[in-house]
């Protein structure tokens, strides 16, 4: 397959590498760095929400226009939540779950020496990094970075009168990122279909591979639509077209000459990608949890086929729910009905998975380790996110809740409570394989509990705020007499947010310290069954010293009659 360059220099080995493991780690480190940046932006937002209008003096030097005298101005706040969302989604969670873990795990778990197209893989990473740089360049543009929400609805985002150059950077960067995702996904699909080891039938694949496969198909089908929408938006902004701009616009007293466009068209195109995108963000995490729970419950996964097909089902139905983000958009209410039906329907396979995970724990022999804690945290928190989604799926209730903090709470429970805890589970589980060293488990558990506590303290009250009618994307909610009584709650949430951010230091310290001083890890420190645990930590270039043959399913734990309580997939009966 890959003609190994036997003595590659530093640059070929660690910078411009085609080895899927190196690329996976490159995605891992990059996305973690971007998530820290996204988190810092959130801290600034929480400052404003906790103490509206209070000066934060050191920011005056960093943002002289946006925080002159240390006091935030509304347009700066709009930029903060826009970039927080954009960075976390596009440069944080997706590259972390799909880019890092997809790359690292797929060849190892299916018994392949590398991806089908290693060079395309490298290109995928090296398009991702510049795309982030382009979007972030907006911070130095006149008027600052994009500030129209990560959803960038036109006409606000399409008119240069209402959105400056930073918006153009944002659009260009996202287009480039879209190509990076598409290239990566082509690789995943080709690799999983064609390069499975002997005996690795589809029904012996670990659930994480089912999940990553579904995710890759979603990416291939949905991302081109986003890229197209972005190109149309770019044309509206730069070449005077009117894809999203109707006739009769009057902005600040000036009548504009656009005609023929529809703002709602953007919403359809955007959400056609962005709803599958949230499944792109959750399915891999669900997959990791499905690998991790059996390992630490020492028990096969409950309902392997149900979980595998539910993953595919969620992906498929996930393509039919996009306009539940648009119930109040002015689209035909009959469309609201059809999308409500599909939205309620997608809750069924999701529920099946949750019950299956619980079934995996039942009558297990549970070992509490850091990855297990994160996996359990995932189930507990994702359920809250999923259940609150039901409120939003009911069109009349959504009429009240749409664009309030109820949605902000819901999305953070699925994306942080779900995806991020799932990512932490994956990182702490596969860290020994990646770096050949163990993370400090005590520090890991401390990090989990602090994160869990402060996360809930910040996010759960958001449901209360939303029910009270607090709209989202609001720089100063105290302008509304009906919301002033939420001051104490907002302050508490902000303090919890600062503590949440601070707690991540423990993770960062553990991550880097253990890389050099952690206890050396053997091949299979967790006594797990899948193929990656049958090769050294870290695996050599080419992954396996000899071709692998698979004899059984991926979760054969506590098999009666066996002395050890696990059977490797490659173990002959």
């Amino acid at each position, binding site marked *: 397959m890959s003609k190994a360059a036997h003595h590659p220099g530093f640059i070929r080995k660690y910078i411009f590498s085609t080895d899927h493991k190196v690329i996976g780690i490159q995605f891992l480190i990059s996305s973690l760095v971007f998530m820290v940046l996204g988190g810092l932006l959130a801290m600034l937002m929480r400052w404003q929400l906790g103490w509206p*209008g209070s000066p934060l003096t050191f920011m005056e030097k960093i943002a002289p*226009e946006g925080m*002159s*005298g240390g*006091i935030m*101005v*509304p*347009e700066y706040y709009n930029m903060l939540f826009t970039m927080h969302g954009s960075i976390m989604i596009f440069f944080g969670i997706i590259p972390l779950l799909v880019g890092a873990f997809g790359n690292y795990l797929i060849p190892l778990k299916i018994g392949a020496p590398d991806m089908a197209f290693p*060079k395309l893989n490298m*290109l995928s990473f*090296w*398009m991702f990094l*510049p795309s982030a740089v*382009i979007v972030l360049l907006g911070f130095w543009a*006149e008027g600052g970075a994009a500030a129209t929400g990560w959803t960038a609805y036109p006409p606000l985002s399409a008119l*240069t009168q209402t959105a*400056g*150059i930073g918006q*153009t*950077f944002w659009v*260009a960067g996202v*287009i*480039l990122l879209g*190509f990076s995702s598409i290239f990566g996904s082509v690789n995943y699909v080709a690799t999983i279909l064609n390069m499975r080891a002997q005996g690795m039938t589809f029904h012996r694949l670990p659930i994480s591979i089912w999940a990553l496969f579904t995710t890759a198909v979603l990416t291939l089908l949905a991302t081109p639509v986003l890229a197209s929408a972005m190109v149309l938006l*770019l044309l509206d*902004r*730069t070449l005077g077209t009117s894809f999203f701009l109707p006739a009769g616009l009057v902005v*600040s*007293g*000036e009548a504009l000459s656009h005609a023929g466009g529809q703002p709602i068209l953007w919403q359809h195109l955007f959400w056609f990608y962005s709803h599958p995108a949230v499944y792109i963000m959750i399915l891999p995490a669900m997959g990791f949890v499905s690998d991790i729970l059996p390992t630490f419950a020492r028990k096969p996964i409950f309902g392997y086929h149900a979980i595998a097909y539910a993953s595919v089902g969620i992906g498929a139905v996930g393509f039919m729910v996009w306009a539940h983000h648009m119930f109040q958009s002015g689209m035909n209410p009959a469309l609201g009905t059809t999308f409500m039906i599909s939205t309620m329907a997608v809750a069924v396979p999701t529920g099946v998975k949750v019950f299956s995970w619980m079934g995996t724990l039942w009558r297990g022999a549970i070992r509490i380790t850091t990855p297990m804690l994160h996996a359990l945290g995932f189930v507990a928190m994702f359920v809250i996110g999923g259940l609150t989604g039901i409120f939003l799926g009911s069109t009349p209730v959504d009429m009240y809740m749409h664009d309030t903090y109820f949605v902000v709470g819901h999305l953070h429970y699925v994306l942080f409570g779900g995806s991020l805890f799932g990512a932490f589970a994956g990182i702490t589980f596969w860290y020994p394989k990646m770096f050949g060293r163990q993370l400090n488990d005590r520090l890991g558990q401390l990090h989990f509990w602090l994160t869990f506590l402060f996360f809930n303290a910040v996010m759960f009250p958001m449901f209360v705020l939303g029910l009270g009618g607090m709209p989202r994307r609001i*720089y*100063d909610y105290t*302008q509304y007499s009906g919301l002033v009584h939420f001051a104490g709650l907002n302050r508490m949430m902000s303090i919890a947010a600062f503590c949440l951010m601070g707690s991540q230091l423990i993770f960062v310290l553990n991550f880097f310290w253990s890389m050099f001083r952690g206890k050396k890890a053997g091949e299979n420190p967790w006594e797990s069954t899948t193929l990656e645990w049958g090769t050294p930590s870290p695996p050599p270039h080419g992954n396996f010293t000899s071709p692998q043959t698979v004899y059984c399913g991926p979760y054969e734990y506590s098999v009666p009659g066996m002395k050890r309580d696990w059977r490797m997939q490659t173990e002959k009966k």
Partner: protein
Amino acid sequence: MNKHLRWGWIVLSAAFFASYWSLDTLSALAAGKSPEAAVRGTVAQAAGTATVSGKVTLAGSAPAPQKIQMAADPVCLQQHKEPVFAQGLVVNGGAIQHALVYVKEGLQGSFPAPVQPVVLNQTGCMYEPHVFGIQAGQPLEIRNSDATLHNINCQAKSNKKFNIAQPTKGMKSTKMFDQPEMAIPFKCNVHPWMASYGSVFSHPFFAVTDAQGAYSLKGLPAGTYTIEVWQEKLGTQNQSVTVADGETKDLSFTLKGN
């Protein structure tokens, strides 16, 4: 795939996106126009001693003034016991207030911009002053004296546009204009009736008529000038005048109503 093809792809993609980026940047730069030095002669002009003054009046009857809906914002409403009227055409007994009178032609040399700022105050949910003149390179200090959000939406054409929010009372922003420009609109979008018109000159010889319709241009060097008056609704009118050192000439305008 050989390395030339690989690098070719990367460079091509980068060039594709760079071209879109630069297209937008260039067009924005062109629209905004990079700052050029204000028109300056090579010789700074010494202070003159002539004065041109007069009144601006309206021929015909003044239209009924339009009431402003201050109730749109309680913070605005509570600052006014009496109804407030729009300032598009303010006439007191025939005299036009808020008309801008200025030297249009005839000056020579350069006039350094004062360091002292012109203050544009948002107070009682109105812009004060409603009409003002400012020199190119002179700072404009925009103050919010109300306990409510005002934004300053400056729709300049030859100068750089801006739109900034000042959410709290006491906030100040300072802006500067490099190009002479007539009647730049300043609006607040939160309170749509708020409007002010600022004109940028390369010299200091401009004045706004007071409640009696009177204006005065002091310190003019001796010479022949075209003096013009601008009123928001009635347009412009100009006259020629010649002054010697120390002389005071009276120059009045009568604008026709629509």
